[in-house]
């Protein structure tokens, strides 16, 4: 809110601190000052009043009280003139509060014989300096009082009220009202409204109704200074989207005792412009607010803030803020001023003491906590291990958006069924961020498209959450890698490397089945995709991204990708992280080359080699696979290194030869396979 320096200084005795210095001190003790600007002979301070202080500091006198306290000056309260009810000619107004729970206090003055005219210059200038347009003297008084005291006022033209009846109640569904901004609103139920005889004349606490508005010919008025339930006003603001100063204040709650003071301040202004006499006071205040007392001791303050402050100093700190403090030794009892509805627990008092004493004077002291080392977060430990292994493999980490757009559904070939499992954002910022990502690969593929003009080969990975909604919402952490301009097997090697780094030795690759649980079929080139499994559990996918998707994205290179469930990986890694002894005896390597029909898989040969060679075969590595010219049609050639090793002794050449021959024989036993010499 904008504050006028000269207006503030009216409530502070003596000379106020210079605007810049004041701004600095306010920022440290009370509220952040976001700007100081010279305007004519005045300075305008833009002060960001904290939301929990709107009820007492979002006005000039309240802010001045704060300034007086932090600069140790005397505070001068605004002028209040007790109203004297005079005899008038108006019929008495009857106000009924139906919404009792939502109206803790309703107070209004009926004033007869006012004159609507332009405000005096000093008032216009003051309002305009803080950004309020002057309308006429009567409306200006309501704004002026709010800016001065923090009490929102509303003014009705008395003569527009039918039957002199006002009913304060909650709205019913579908009721309509035209308010001062000239717009018509259809109301939801449960908002505060005021009705005369059959018409809505006020959207209480938010904006006045058109029907009861003050005009240039208004003679008699009602000044209303009610207190309305904050959450009801908040709801009205939210639902109707009307943000007014009054509703901001009401929504954060005000002191019911302020109503009277606000009206009295208005009366003193009427004396200067507008005139008139009070002919009726309506005050409905069934449950008077009582003051709260909070007790605090010197030792409690020391424990809380970490600095010793004497009882006398605590008293000296709290008194200018309006607390009345009595002390007995080191114990203090503070009565909270009713306008400080933010102060209700002892921690609130600690804040007042701390900030006024000066947070900068609190020393930095390390806590005396146990030396117990933190327990490691194993999930994160494995995530970091995966990141490191992909880093070692030369991959660059990307962070993409957690969202995909409406267009992505078509781009990435979602079936209707797949699209239904996407989690939709109720209030997306744009159509490009309408759903939560269900896989990391889509946004990563878009990253390929974006980077391909600058890089001939792209190696990226990402770790992050993906979301799906089949009956229940599921959130999973995934790790994905994307590689361009390379073959499937290159990325498979990366996955193997990563799994090896986690100590997971029993992963295998299964041919993609028709209904994979966790990955959308249409994302992949269906002939070149594998499920990554450990035991019978699928932990992820590896394959070529569908050509259809690539061509839509105008990606020219082949794109291979994997996505693995990070949580499953972490569980498996934790299970397998035991140390494995290595053999101290040397290994012997022999090669086998064989011709097999094209549909034979590498894994078939591996199984045959392993079962024939039994436990002396430590490892079998494919090092060449070829089909083409020199090979008989329908056949392909494969070559393997077979590594022999024993845990018990050094294998002799003879022993190795014997097993090797046994393996060759068993391979040749398959009628369509042929081991090449």
């Amino acid at each position: 809110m904008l504050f006028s320096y000269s207006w503030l200084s009216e409530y502070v005795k003596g000379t106020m601190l210079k605007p810049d210095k004041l701004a600095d001190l306010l920022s440290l003790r009370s509220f952040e000052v976001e700007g100081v600007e010279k305007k004519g002979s005045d300075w305008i301070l833009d002060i960001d009043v904290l939301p929990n202080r709107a009820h007492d500091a979002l006005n000039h006198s309240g802010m001045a009280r704060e300034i007086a306290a932090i600069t140790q000056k005397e505070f001068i309260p605004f002028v209040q003139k007790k109203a004297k009810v005079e005899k008038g000619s108006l019929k008495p107004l009857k106000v009924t509060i139906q919404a009792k729970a939502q109206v803790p206090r309703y107070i209004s003055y009926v004033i007869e014989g006012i004159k609507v005219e332009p405000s005096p210059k000093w008032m216009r200038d003051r309002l305009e300096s803080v950004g309020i347009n002057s309308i006429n003297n009567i409306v200006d008084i309501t704004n002026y009082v709010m800016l001065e005291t923090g009490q929102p006022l509303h003014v009705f033209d008395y003569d527009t009220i039918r039957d002199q009846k006002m009913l304060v109640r909650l709205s019913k569904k579908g009721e309509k009202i035209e308010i001062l901004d000239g717009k018509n609103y259809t109301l939801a139920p449960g908002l505060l409204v005021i009705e005369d005889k059959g018409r809505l004349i006020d959207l209480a606490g938010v904006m006045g109704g058109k029907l009861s508005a003050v005009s240039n010919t208004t003679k008699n008025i009602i000044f209303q200074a009610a207190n309305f339930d904050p959450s009801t006003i908040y709801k009205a603001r939210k639902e109707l989207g009307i943000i007014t100063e009054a509703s901001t204040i009401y929504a954060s709650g005000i002191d019911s005792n302020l109503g009277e003071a606000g009206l009295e301040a208005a009366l003193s202004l009427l004396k200067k412009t507008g005139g008139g006499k009070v002919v009726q006071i309506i005050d409905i205040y069934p449950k008077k607010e009582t003051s709260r007392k909070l007790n605090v001791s010197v030792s409690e303050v020391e424990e809380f803030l970490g600095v010793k402050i004497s009882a006398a100093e605590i008293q000296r700190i709290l008194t200018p803020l309006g607390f009345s403090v009595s002390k007995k030794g080191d114990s203090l009892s503070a009565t909270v001023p009713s306008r400080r509805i933010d102060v209700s627990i002892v921690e609130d008092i600690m804040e007042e003491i701390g900030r006024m004493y000066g947070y900068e004077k609190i020393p930095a002291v390390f806590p005396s906590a146990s030396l117990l080392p933190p327990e490691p977060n194993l999930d994160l430990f494995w995530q970091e291990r995966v990141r490191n292994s992909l880093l070692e493999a030369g991959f660059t980490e990307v962070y993409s958006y957690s969202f995909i757009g409406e267009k992505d559904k078509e781009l990435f070939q979602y079936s209707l069924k797949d699209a239904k499992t996407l989690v939709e954002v109720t209030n997306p910022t744009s159509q490009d961020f309408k759903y939560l990502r269900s896989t990391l690969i889509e946004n990563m593929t878009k990253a390929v498209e974006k980077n391909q003009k600058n890089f001939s080969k792209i190696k990226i990975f990402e770790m992050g959450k993906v979301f799906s909604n089949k009956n229940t919402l599921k959130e999973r952490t995934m790790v994905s890698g994307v590689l361009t301009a390379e073959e499937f097997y290159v990325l498979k090697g990366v996955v193997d490397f990563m799994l090896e780094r986690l100590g997971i030795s029993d992963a295998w690759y299964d041919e993609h089945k028709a209904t994979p649980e966790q990955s959308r079929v249409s994302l992949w080139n269906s002939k070149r995709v594998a499920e990554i499994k450990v035991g019978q559990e699928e932990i992820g996918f590896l394959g070529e991204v569908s050509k259809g998707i690539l061509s839509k994205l105008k990606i020219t290179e082949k794109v291979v990708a994997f996505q693995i469930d990070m949580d499953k990986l972490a569980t498996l890694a934790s299970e397998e992280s035991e140390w494995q002894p290595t053999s101290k005896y040397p290994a012997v390597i022999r090669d086998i080359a064989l011709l097999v029909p094209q549909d034979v898989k590498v894994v078939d040969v591996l199984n045959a080699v392993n079962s024939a060679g039994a436990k002396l075969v430590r490892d079998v590595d494919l090092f060449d696979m070829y089909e083409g010219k020199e090979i008989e049609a329908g056949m392909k050639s494969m070559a393997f290194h077979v590594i022999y090793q024993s845990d018990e002794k050094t294998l002799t050449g003879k022993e190795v030869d014997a097993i090797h021959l046994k393996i060759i024989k068993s391979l040749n036993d398959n009628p369509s396979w042929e081991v090449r010499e």
Partner: protein
Amino acid sequence: MENNLKTLKNTAEKGIKQAKNLKDLDGVFRLYLGRKGELTGILRSLKDMPSKERSAFGKEANEVRQVLQEAFDSRQKELGWSNETQEGSIDVTAPGQKIQAGHLHPITQTRRKVEEIFGSMGFVVADGPEVEDEWHNFDALNIPAGHPARDLWDTFWLKAEINKKPLLLRTHTSPVQIRYMQEHKPPIRIIAPGRTFRYEATDAGHEINFYQVEGLMIDENISVANFKAVIQEFFKRFFEKDVTIRLRPSYFPFTEPSFEVDISCVLCEGKGCSSCEHTGWFEMLGAGMVHPKVLKAVGYNPKNLRGFAFGMGMDRLAMMKYKIPDVRMFFASDLKFLKQF
């Protein structure tokens, strides 16, 4: 025969000594020690000798060969021969072959550093879901429905529910603190780094998804002074500079009192420069003493416990550390940017 051998030795030694260059020397070598050399011939003829003479003469001939070989080797070195001279020379100014190194995202690197520093002060890293319910994200943090405080967090809501209540994308990592406290008894010392979401227009300083790290310490005797020490130590170690901090009053529903924490500008060391808008300070994080209502919400007894909590933008830390001007660069997947880290 023996004289012959001696003469051969002398002549050969002389020849080796007199050789002016490697080529001459090579000629001398061929003449005596080469495949068709004189001494090689003699050595070959040994097998035709009667065994009686063979042993003595053979021994001598081999000694001569050894002497000559050594003389040859040392002369060869004198003339500047080495294995490498046999190869062609290279252009040392030609570029090296590029290594395709991997790169970790700057936010990952920042997070690791944050975790390391707090880890050394005994803080555990906690994590939790990105999709949250209202209770964990708001109510438990003393931000009830219908309270204007909710406006401080612009929220993405989801068309998905749990127990008939709408789900949302967490607006801060505070729900991780709630979940952790529900599952653990005090004392508590955690940090919660992670991705968070805000429904807002994006610009250089704002993103719809971004990264935060929050911290929480709960024990019987935690004070504001303790918070100052922990957070100041963190910044000193993070920026590797003698950073000072200051607290200003603030408001968050889940802490009382609440602070805005500024750090002295790491560029000008508090003197005032264009980066800190000549104030000498950077607004860095929000913090405060945990509100008793939050402790109550997780089932703790607020009478015996107190603590502090804080939260800051991980992106902001990374932006300051690496002098990155625009938060959107983190999420643009531009390899020209990411490969710089």
